[in-house]
């Protein structure tokens, strides 16, 4: 097969690009808000933790509780940072992978399904970090993590993984098909 016969790159559907761009915009807004409202966010999280002493295992002794609150606040901040980084990165992953899918996959149904999984998974997964952060003050570190895992990370992460492996398989298949006998 020559270059002239081979398919040209196709752009993914517009809604996919829109979702990817929105994910990147959300990441930027999140990152900017973290810096702009750092004090307010920390105060909100700390007040939330102090309102739920049993959830966080506070014992009423400052020397002990400060360490617990500090760890929760560090994780709260880490969740926001991870949302910022993942939303930025996954936006680009959505664009790149859906472009490969749009170009390589011939079957319309398969292409649509894989693009939908890549987009939903890629855009949804980073939200899990935001959910985790927001839930920490009320539910504690571990419980909040479990909720975020089952509500967001597992379903959306699985969607992305499945779609990526299917896409990798289809790219490999198309390479084998084109190989001269």
């Amino acid at each position: 097969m020559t270059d002239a016969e081979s398919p040209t790159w196709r752009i993914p559907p517009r809604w996919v690009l829109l979702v990817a761009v929105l994910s990147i915009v959300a990441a930027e807004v999140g990152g900017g808000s973290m810096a702009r409202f750092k004090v307010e966010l920390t105060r909100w999280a700390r007040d939330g933790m102090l309102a739920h002493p049993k959830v966080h295992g506070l014992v009423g002794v400052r020397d002990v509780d400060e360490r617990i609150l500090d760890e929760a606040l560090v994780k709260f901040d880490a969740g926001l940072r991870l949302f910022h980084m993942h939303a930025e990165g996954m936006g680009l992953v959505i664009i790149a992978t859906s472009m490969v899918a749009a170009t390589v996959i011939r079957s319309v149904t398969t292409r649509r399904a894989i693009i939908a999984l890549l987009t939903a998974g890629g855009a949804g997964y980073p939200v899990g970090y935001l959910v985790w952060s927001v839930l920490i003050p009320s539910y504690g570190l571990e419980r909040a993590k479990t909720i975020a895992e089952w509500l967001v990370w597992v379903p959306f992460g699985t969607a992305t993984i499945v779609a990526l492996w299917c896409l990798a398989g289809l790219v490999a298949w198309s390479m084998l098909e084109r190989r001269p006998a």
Partner: protein
Amino acid sequence: MTGRAILAPAVLAALVVVAAPISSASAHHVGAYVPKDNAITTNFKQVKFSVQAGKYDVAIRLFDSGALRAEMRAHAATLPAGLEDGTRAALSAGDGPEVERRLMIFFAALSRNLALEADRQIARPDATAETRVATGRKFLEAIWRYYNLVDFAVASRDDKASVALRLAFDEAETYVKSPAAGVTPIDPAGIRQPLQRMAQVLSTLIASSSPTPRRST
């Protein structure tokens, strides 16, 4: 080889690379927490290093404006009389060993108070086994954070106290560790005994290291 022939394997490799790490169980990495110094331990280190460097003017300034002095005042009722004034006087006189001894007494007192409070909370009749383990673990961490700062000073003055405290601490830790699979968990109330021993060792250390109060004639 055409550009397309090179690009296809590159795309495949990139997809595999992107898909592989997120398929592992560690995908939801949420960062690691490294405990930081609090205001008291930070100020202790500042004063200690200033004293070691012979910069007593700096040490006095850090002591006067720092959390150590504020805490000494806040805990005055449970500390040997004159500990705060004596520490400042030792700093003014440039007496390094005396500063070290007084700070050792202060941190021993903080650790003892924590051991006593831990014992009190664990003894509560409404505390469940889980709560006792969690409370014990947190208190042990806080006790060690303070005691560890002065362990060398304790060992160089009273090695028996240092060993006794370490043994009690090690024993206390066994009650808050997660048991191995198939092993019956130890009753967490047992931690009270080593905690009481720690408090006793530290009380004796404080009493023996504190200057004898002057008798009024």
